[in-house]
């Protein structure tokens, strides 16, 4: 029976009759030449938008947790955490980018802290001053972006350094050290 034969997977099977499938995305259809240089980014969400930082800048990803409070800490510093014996500052990336009106309360007495959302993460990144944590809403994916698809931002000072397409999604590329500057 022909329909049962179609049950078996064949890499070269004809799927042209699957009209409900959306066409390949423009980026996939115009796939970059295989030898084009690509850069790896880690994408994550902040306030509903997808941002990305160079993967090479990320040391590790931690489940977000209550932090140790620093008296008179200045925003966007949230507090510090003990990372295997290294005191590591953690910053509110959303506040640093002007996406949030107020800093989260995640350090100090637990009863005074905001609830830590299940999907929140701390990206520990390499900076000139040593490892620094960035509080983000959710980590998404590692994306390999063709260099040719990256659109640089004209400003040389802003934390947002460019944009890139990843499938159907637009990534906002960040320079983390500029957020803290």
């Amino acid at each position, binding site marked *: *029976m*022909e*329909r*049962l*034969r*179609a*049950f*078996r*997977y*064949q*890499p*070269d*099977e*004809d*799927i042209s*009759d*699957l009209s*409900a*499938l*959306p066409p*390949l*995305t423009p*980026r*996939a259809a115009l796939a970059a030449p295989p030898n084009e240089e690509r850069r790896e980014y880690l994408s994550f969400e902040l306030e509903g938008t997808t941002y990305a930082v160079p993967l090479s800048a990320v040391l590790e990803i931690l489940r977000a947790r209550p932090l140790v409070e620093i008296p008179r800490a200045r925003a966007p510093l949230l507090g510090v955490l003990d990372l295997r014996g290294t005191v590591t500052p953690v910053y509110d990336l959303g506040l640093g980018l002007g996406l949030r009106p107020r800093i989260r309360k995640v350090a100090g007495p637990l009863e005074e802290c905001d609830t830590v959302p299940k999907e929140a993460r701390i990206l520990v990144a390499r900076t000139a001053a040593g490892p620094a944590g960035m509080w983000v809403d959710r980590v*998404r*994916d*590692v*994306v*390999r*972006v063709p260099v040719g698809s990256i659109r640089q931002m004209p400003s040389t000072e802003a934390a947002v350094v460019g944009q890139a397409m*990843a*499938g*159907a*999604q637009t990534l906002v590329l960040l320079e983390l050290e500029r957020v803290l500057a």
Partner: protein
Amino acid sequence: MSAHLPEDETLELFTFFVGAQRYAVDLLRVDEVLPLMEVTALPDVRAPVVGSVLVRGESVPVVELRQALAEGPAPEDARPGLLVCRLGRRRVGFRIDGVGTVARVAAGTLGAPPVGAAVSPAVVAVWAQPPSSCRRLTCARF
């Protein structure tokens, strides 16, 4: 039913649940099973495709199998997931209500869906031996 397949040929099937019904696809089609993730709505898609998800940098269309198979609501103990299958050289995600097992069955135990029964065109065969509730699904015709 199995005129084109030797009766003693063994098929490896990946079984899963949609609603209370157990379905199966060719194990070779299965790329991975992911936790259910947020689906991005796409313009100009039509049912049963509901949008896409980003899987390791690739935009993968997502099919609502419950709608395609006219199944009822998920059972209370459902563990929803996204079954990523290969259709030709494309990858397509199917929303499922739970993962079953890998079953090895002889092609000779297959039966045609009952004539006139309200089954989706995607259902190509019914397992004639217990458990008889396991339907075969091509995942390629919706």
